[in-house]
């Protein structure tokens, strides 16, 4: 199978994620879009790993790292979202424009 097509899929998911991050108002949806972007990187890594036929499986290892980072990011991100919600009663990123509360 063609490597480029898989990479294109990754690129597509990434740009969809970019759109989501820019166009969404709800903070949780923004987090989801970031997940999309991270995931597209994973697809790239796995595709390259399969293409290289690397016996050390470096691509897979980095994909695992990214999954871990994504988990950490969601944990902290959601904590922030909940905190903002508790203080501002909204999770619309446009409305959270004060630098203090």
């Amino acid at each position: 199978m063609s490597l480029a097509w898989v990479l294109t899929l990754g690129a597509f998911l990434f740009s969809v994620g970019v759109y989501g991050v820019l166009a969404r108002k709800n903070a949780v949806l923004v987090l989801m879009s970031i997940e999309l972007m991270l995931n597209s990187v994973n697809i790239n890594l796995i595709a390259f790993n399969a293409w290289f036929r690397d016996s050390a499986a470096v691509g897979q290892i980095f994909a695992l790292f990214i999954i871990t980072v994504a988990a950490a990011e969601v944990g902290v991100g959601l904590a922030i979202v909940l905190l903002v919600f508790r203080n501002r009663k909204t999770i619309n990123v446009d409305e959270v424009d004060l630098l203090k509360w």
Partner: protein
Amino acid sequence: MDPEATEGAVVSWPAVFVAIFGAVAALSAVAVVLSRNVVHAALYLVVVLGAAGAIFLVLGAEFVGWTQILIYVGAIVVLLLFGLMLTAAPIGTHALDNQQRGVAFMTSAAVFGVFTFIIWRSFGSQRIHLNQVVRTSDVGRSLFSGYILPFEVVSVLLLAALVGAIVLAKKD
């Protein structure tokens, strides 16, 4: 680079699966960012991540594939759904987008265009051959020999994130 890279276009079963799952993932990803209902968006995200996991399995990354499902689907999306429900996700549609949709669309289209151009420029003729299965023990061996330091760093990161999340979410 690869000697077999210029082989003729043979449609193999893995390629078909990747195409199917890829299409599913792409469509669902679009649905994630366009959906007018937050919970639907999260569920579409599940589909994207599941399809990506399936692609990993097809591409021979068994361990990563199942990890993807265990961590992403079983934990991250559930956390996201939690966040949605705790911040009151009503049934029905609400305005979820801001005013910069046009700009966002152009930006992402530009990103996609540049990426696609570069990808096809560089790897347009490369092919993936799936005759070698990467076994989980290889991943483990590699992870705990050459990449032990990054592994530990990631563990520390995870711990920091855990503590940070608890500190942030804790009521005073």
